């Protein structure tokens, strides 16, 4: 079986946080403690969405010291593929589900003298766990949290209360936007910056920091990528001798799994590299949506990341 080891859980709580965000808490079905994790880790939640098996990664937002359960927050995406809608509409307290052991691709760099967290919207979730960890170990940190409005900035109140002036809120509708250049220019040597939020925000922070001379080793980010939707397409799986159809709201990886083929994965968000698959033949265009393959590899077209990428064209044969 691919992916991280699985845990049978039961949904303990479903709590609406604001108009778009709901929090879920999972505990072990047999009342056992869950594996410990570090701030920035995610779990992959399995959903059986009308015959489509989805496995979506969500950041663990609880205190890493608390292993009695895991909490995640899910933002409803009305135009997405349906995973978040399933979580919002179907998942109820008492429901039995399966989640994966935690995997961390966004850990604190413990060489840092200071951690600077920059969150946009729902991107706050990994930082809630990271701040709990940094706080426990007496590490210096500062959070800058941007959202459209206070009502859409989940957990703003609690975090400000818990961490006081280490939390800075930036709200579009209150005109308190982040002066990023000023912020990054005055950080003490040894600061690491962590960014989680929408793509343009990531690019903005990475570019500004790089222009100021920040080394790439001190810039960490996690993009909560969801596999994009697109046109239906067909793929041949050479090793298992199958021809499959990838639906518009399905990822290639999901379609491979639905065909009963065990394919490797870990993050399901184009970041970890686990799902890398060789392309044996391609007549058409691979739509690379991951940030694992290099630009050169993407241009070459001999590899594909099925968790994120799609295809347009006549024929795609994979070594799977």
């Amino acid at each position: 079986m691919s992916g991280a080891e699985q845990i049978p859980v039961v949904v303990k709580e479903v709590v609406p946080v604001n108009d778009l965000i709901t929090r879920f808490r999972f505990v072990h079905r047999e009342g056992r403690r869950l594996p410990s994790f570090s701030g920035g880790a995610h779990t992959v939640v399995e959903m059986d969405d009308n015959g489509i098996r989805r496995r979506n990664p969500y950041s663990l937002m609880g205190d890493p010291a608390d292993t009695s359960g895991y909490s995640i927050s899910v933002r409803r995406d009305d135009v997405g593929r349906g995973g978040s809608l399933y979580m919002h509409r179907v998942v109820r307290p008492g429901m039995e589900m399966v989640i994966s052991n935690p995997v961390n691709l966004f850990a604190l760099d413990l060489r840092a003298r200071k951690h600077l967290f920059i969150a946009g919207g729902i991107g706050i979730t990994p930082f809630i766990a990271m701040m709990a960890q940094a706080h426990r170990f007496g590490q210096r940190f500062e959070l800058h949290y941007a959202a459209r409005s206070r009502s859409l900035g989940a957990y703003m109140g609690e975090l400000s209360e818990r961490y006081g002036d280490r939390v800075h809120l930036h709200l579009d509708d209150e005109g308190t936007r982040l002066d990023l250049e000023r912020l990054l220019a005055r950080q003490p040597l040894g600061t690491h910056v962590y960014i989680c939020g929408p793509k343009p925000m990531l690019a903005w922070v990475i570019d500004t920091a790089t222009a100021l001379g920040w080394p790439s080793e001190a810039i960490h980010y996690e993009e909560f990528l969801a596999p994009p939707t697109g046109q239906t397409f067909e793929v041949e799986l050479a090793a298992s001798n199958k021809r499959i159809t990838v639906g518009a709201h399905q990822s290639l990886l999901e379609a491979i799994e639905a065909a009963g083929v065990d394919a490797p994965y870990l993050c399901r968000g184009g970041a970890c590299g686990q799902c890398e698959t060789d392309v044996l033949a391609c007549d058409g265009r691979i739509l690379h949506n991951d940030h694992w393959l290099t630009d050169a590899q993407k241009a070459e077209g001999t590899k594909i990341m099925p968790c994120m990428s799609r295809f347009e064209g006549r024929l795609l044969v994979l070594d799977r």
Partner: protein
Amino acid sequence: MTKTIFEPSILSRPVYGELEPRRGQGHLMVADGEGAEAILDCLARAPEAAAMLARTHIIYCPGPNGTDLSDRLAALGAAQFHRAPSFAAALPRLRRVLGDARMGTQVYLAGTEGLIGQALREVTDAGLPHTAVQTEHRGSTVRRVQCVHCKGITEDVRTDPFQCSHCGLWLFVRDHYSRRIAAFQGVNIDAEDPGQVPTPVVRFQ
């Protein structure tokens, strides 16, 4: 003297590059001996040398073989130039500069392995990842070696084997390097046959 070519060796043996001017809010350059020439070459390649110099702090000490190029560095006109008689004497200043530095400061280290290693340790202690620091080897190849038995450090080791300046054991100089201690490791060479010490050969000059 131009940059030194070292034989490829085990992974732990440090490797050095060539200093390149980089974009940054400030520039901290630390060098000894012939390392001054790496700084001069780097600045000569800078597209906007005057602007870079206006934000450059140079800390320099003479090399283990006596090379002292401070006049040429002083003549560059950097925002700050500080000459110290030794690395140990420069250390308090280096620590203060690192303590006040902001992210976006570029660090350049040049000269002997002893200087690069010890300055790098200070920079990484200040929280900058070691891979973000540029280094270039110039000049003497003498080594800073830690005796793995008594833990004492001998500076400027020239021969292999050599006698530990602390416990007196004869030590074989390995390429095994500790970034934390900023020293190569020296291991007793006649542990099994006491007194059978090969004739010391000058390996580091």
